[in-house]
């Protein structure tokens, strides 16, 4: 049954890729990157759920990988947003001398 989420994950990856290609603004690219990342994490979640065994409802290893991945994705978002903010500030300074 968790395959439904597997399909969802595949679609999210596709959506994220689409956004990464078509958007011109960096903010939207970063947002799309997060959607893409969520798709990958969800796929790992499905893999974890399928790996239920030995009395555990899911394989904890992929779940732990997802938690680490969320931290890394957040760090990337923060760095990207900081770059965007800095570039926008520069724009404003140039616009209003």
């Amino acid at each position: 049954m968790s395959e439904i989420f597997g399909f969802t994950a595949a679609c999210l990856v596709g959506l994220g890729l689409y956004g990464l290609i078509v958007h011109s603004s960096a903010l939207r690219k970063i947002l799309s990157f997060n959607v893409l990342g969520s798709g990958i994490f969800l796929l790992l979640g499905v893999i974890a759920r399928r790996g239920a065994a030995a009395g555990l409802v899911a394989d904890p290893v992929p779940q732990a990988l997802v938690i680490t991945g969320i931290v890394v994705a957040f760090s990337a978002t923060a760095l990207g947003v900081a770059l965007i903010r800095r570039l926008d500030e520069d724009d404003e300074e140039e616009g209003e001398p």
Partner: protein
Amino acid sequence: MSSAALLILVLTLPVAGILLVVVGGGRQARGISLAVLVGNFAVAVGIGGAVCRTGRAVTYSSGGWTAPLGIQLRADGLSVVMLITAAVVALAVGVYAPNEFAVRRGGVETRRSLAFWSLLLAVSCAMNAIFLGNDFFNLYVALELLTFAAVPLVCLTGTRATLEAALRYLLFALTGSALYLLGVALLYGNYGTLDITKLSGLVRYEPGMPLWVAVALMTSGLAAKTALFPLHLWLPPAHGGAPPSASALLSALVVKGSFFLTVRLWFDTVPGQAGMRTGQLLGAMGAGAIVVGGVLALKQERLKLLIAYSTVAQIGYLFLMFPLAGHVGALSGGMLQAAAHAFAKASMFLGAGLMAEVAGSDRLDGLRGMGRALPLTTCAFVLAALSLVGVPPTGGFMAKWQLLSAAFSAGQWWWVVVILCGGLLAGGYMFRAVRPTLVEGIQPAAAIPRLREWVVLALAVCALLLGGFSKKVLELLDIGRPQITEMRP
């Protein structure tokens, strides 16, 4: 502590250095970093000694948890060569680093001093983690560590152009690592382990479409991070715009990180199983890089951009090893190229930095008379250029020679044409770069500390020595390699 514990030491030493730099502020940053980098080099050599002595790969399981549940670190011949190369380059960049990254005694910390030194150590840490990693997710974290160290290095000066280059680089790198991670997820879903050694055993008996989708995703992600043609667009503005110390790190080391992972994937995880076509495709992209990068380098008017485009071209050679996989000389040629390019390119970028400091800009037509103003640097520059072009007896020559002989023994003559063409192009653009420095002209009296010039020369000499000791290096590269029993038809 056994010699295997050195593997953990080489990972944690730079981490400890970063912590000290952040806590101590910029003031002691230079001293702390140099001490750590010297230690890093010593440990890398120690690991090399241990590998040579035993003639086998050294492994270490963190916390005593063995794979597949735990994470294993593994040093084989490839790791050792790259570890030592990276340690030398990082140390050289640290010694070279100009005063703008230093804080005067009793002065306050500056933005650049804190950022530069911690990022330098972070590059060192990430490279070590990549060379020793034997677990694909551990390697993902290391890869991201490298991204976070590299992106801010691009825009250390804070000019608009470099900020834009950094943002573009970040987006490329993030997309690349996302694709890589997707492949990692598929590998786990199919084999239940991410340990390279374990995986290589499993895929031999259960290859299949999921495996190839995973490998394709990982390879394309890594290619984007390595700036393989046609995904190279982010590289020239980033490497050409960064401060010279940063450019040297980016061009010599950072792109090699994702490349090294591609080698681990193709030569260690799925050895001898890659289809003919995929290998040819990667080789074709490499050939495209060699030609397009070379032609674009010919057109540049600024020295640093020329060197950056030369990196695009030289990366192309690295990917010629994939269509030739399984033939003697392919792997060793590629790895020699990675090391020789690291030394030569670091020397060039650092040398270009000194020249730009003297001339006031890095425009090619402003470099006349550099030979007189900075004799050591110019000498190093010529040496490094010879290695990049592939003139005997440099490391660059030995690398290309290995690749050529692999192409001959594989009967794939078209790569021979590509390599020779690339050599001609490199000769052309390097001539354009070197010629003005050797022509008479007037340069302001150089006020460059001699030590910085010596560093540049030392790196170029390393590229030369790599050619001289290539036999030893080739022997070292063979240690701990998986035995490839089956050869592709």
